[in-house]
């Protein structure tokens, strides 16, 4: 059984995000990019499933510019077997991504498609669900535990009320949550080996996928600056301050 892992190139989580002076978006020039951390968890889970003998091949997939190869190389260095770059220089919306992944899933016929529950750049959290719908297969989202047994997967999901365990028939889409695992460190010799692994290049057009109509970004603004806090001397003062503000 194959696993297809979808990864996204995003601005690194350590970067202090800055809005462009003309408010047309965020600054990406000279900014460190890396693999979406939730997707890294998806890659790690695929590796663990492979090490447990549940699957035998891991294909890493991304949609993005030529440089998104770097993220595929990271996945290959972690242990993925091969990779596919669907190249585009346009901003990719969840629906476009889902169409591409569903198309690739149709071609590669994986037993499981893994991806992060959301990407940390736009935080939309839709791609996994839409991929499952378009591929017409079950979905198990926000996974914090994945057990594959035969033709089905038992998945523990993180939901608002706590944990929910469901069973889905495979093939299925599983989106990964933070507590599922802790991704491994990449070893230097593995990065070298990863350079020899294949990355197939294709494009959204070559796959015959119609890109979703682009959303128009009207304005990007930083969150309002936090007002400075205030120290109060006593409980009474705290209570009266809160009352003044109409909070209690």
């Amino acid at each position, binding site marked *: 059984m194959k696993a297809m892992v979808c990864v996204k190139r995003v601005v*690194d989580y*350590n*970067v*202090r995000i*800055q809005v462009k*002076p003309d408010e047309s978006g965020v600054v990406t*020039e*000279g*900014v*460190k990019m890396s693999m979406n951390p939730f997707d890294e968890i998806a890659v790690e889970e695929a590796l663990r499933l492979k090490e447990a003998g549940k699957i035998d091949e891991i294909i890493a997939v991304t949609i993005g510019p030529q440089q998104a190869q770097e993220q595929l190389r990271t996945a290959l260095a972690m242990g993925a077997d091969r990779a596919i770059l669907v190249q585009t220089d346009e901003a990719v919306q969840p629906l476009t991504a889902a169409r591409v992944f569903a198309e690739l899933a149709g071609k590669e016929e994986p037993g499981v498609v893994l991806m992060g529950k959301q990407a940390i750049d736009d935080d939309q959290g839709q791609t996994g669900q839409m991929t499952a719908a378009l591929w017409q297969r079950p979905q198990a989202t926000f996974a914090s535990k994945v057990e594959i047994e035969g033709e089905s997967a038992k998945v523990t999901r993180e939901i608002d009320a706590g944990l929910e365990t469901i069973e889905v028939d495979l093939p299925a889409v599983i989106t990964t949550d933070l507590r599922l695992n*802790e*991704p*491994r*460190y*990449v*070893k*230097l*010799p593995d*990065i*070298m080996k990863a350079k020899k692994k294949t990355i197939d290049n294709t494009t959204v057009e070559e796959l015959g996928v119609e890109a979703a109509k682009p959303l128009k970004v009207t304005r990007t603004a930083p969150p309002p600056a936090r007002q400075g806090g205030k120290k109060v001397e006593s409980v009474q003062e705290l209570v009266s301050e809160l009352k003044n503000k109409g909070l209690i």
Partner: protein
Amino acid sequence: MEYDAVIVGAGPAGLATAIRLKQLNSDTEVCVIEKASEVGAQILAGAVIEPEPLDELLPGWRDNPPNMCVPAGKDEFLFLGKSGATRMPLPPQMHNRGNFIVSLGAVCKWLAPQAEELGVEIYPGFAAADTLFDDDGNVAGVRIGDMGVARDGSEKSGYTPGVDIRAKVTVFAEGCRGSLTKQLIRRYELDEGKSPQTYGIGFKELWQVPDGRTETGRITHTIGWPVDRRTYGGGFVYHYDDNRVAVGYVVGLDYEDPNLFPFELFQQFKHHPQIKRLLEGGKILSSGARAIVEGGWQAMPTMEMPGALMVGDCGGTLNVPKIKGTHTAMRSGMIAAEHLAGDELSPRGYDAKLRASAVGRELYQVRNIRPGFHKGLWRGLINAAVETVTGGRLPRTLETRADWSSLQKVGEYPAPERDFYQRDLPPKDRLQSVYFAATEHDEDQPVHLKVADTDICVSRCREEYNNPCTRFCPANVYEMVEDEQGLRLQINAANCVHCKTCDIKDPYEIITWVTPEGGSGPNYQNL
């Protein structure tokens, strides 16, 4: 893993070495390792650079320049009082016609893929933690630090031991006060007969300022306020395009006042009316700090040792009067590569070639200028004028002294009238500043700042020097805290921006900076 050459550090010197090695012989297997999470993320420089080495290394680079690269425009040199500024004649070393204002981080980020195209393998995120030696005592490569070690030294679940990278020649390009270079200089006594190396601490912030204030290419250097006359220090303002300016301040680490607070001096400099009117209402994009090497010709150690050599600032190739080290760092790398390629990768003879080269000549000529400032600002300036007019031909070489030894004891240094402003520009304090450095260390890893004897901190140091580490560190790593166990030193290692100042300036020489887990540390953007 085995290579022909392993280069430690992907700064301008290391990358120039790598590129030149490949250009001269594409069969040479070259590997560059870099402790930062990506190339350029821990590079901090002014920076106005001389482009000649780039022209030689990558002809045609001007058609495909890095980000944040603008031709140098108008130069000015100001002497500051607290509110006034007097225009000074521009020393010849400080003319910048034909030079470029760059972000050195962006330059390195731009050089790396060009090196990779030539076949150089570059591995960011891996720190060289140790040097490997063969049975004959020659350097044989480096050992990468382990990943996944807990704070107490135990192995975490993801523990990954570091690998050994062996090579016929190891090129150290660690930058100022390299942690391995420091050990090797001792081991092979490379500083024998040399003057002690000296340093400065440099701060820099990149600002986005309101429309209409910048003049792309403009270069301002200042001396005078806010340092007192006995302390060496100066500021700079460089104007990029798109309303961006770099503002920075350097303080010589030979300062004597135990209560000096370099970070505060930088912040005060920003509040001088000349500078403040430029910044007010703008915002900080990025900030950081880094030690710079100032010892010059007489402090440059022997740059070769069995199996290895040094290039760039870990050997101290910076030209202080020019306030530039990039061109000499790159050129030292190119000279090293040419030497290695011509002599079956043997480092022997490189040191002599470097000293006889344009780099050596340049450093020799200006060797007496920086040490002249030990006697204060005015005598330093007069000495600099004499040395400049004579082109360094006077038959003398001024001695330097080690920075750790220069502090006077509390009460001995006449407290200068600082006359500081009430500050209102960001950042408020060092913790806010560290935020803009985007520094990151996994908290659960061994502390990478080794203090040999913390008893000294609470006893002797408190009394003699009032714990200067709590002030010279630009990232507030060192704090003296008092709790139930009494007074003790607290090391906030996760804040560290890898500037190395503590390793240099601590008056008892008990602080040692070692590499943290690879990929840790600041993530500078366009510094």
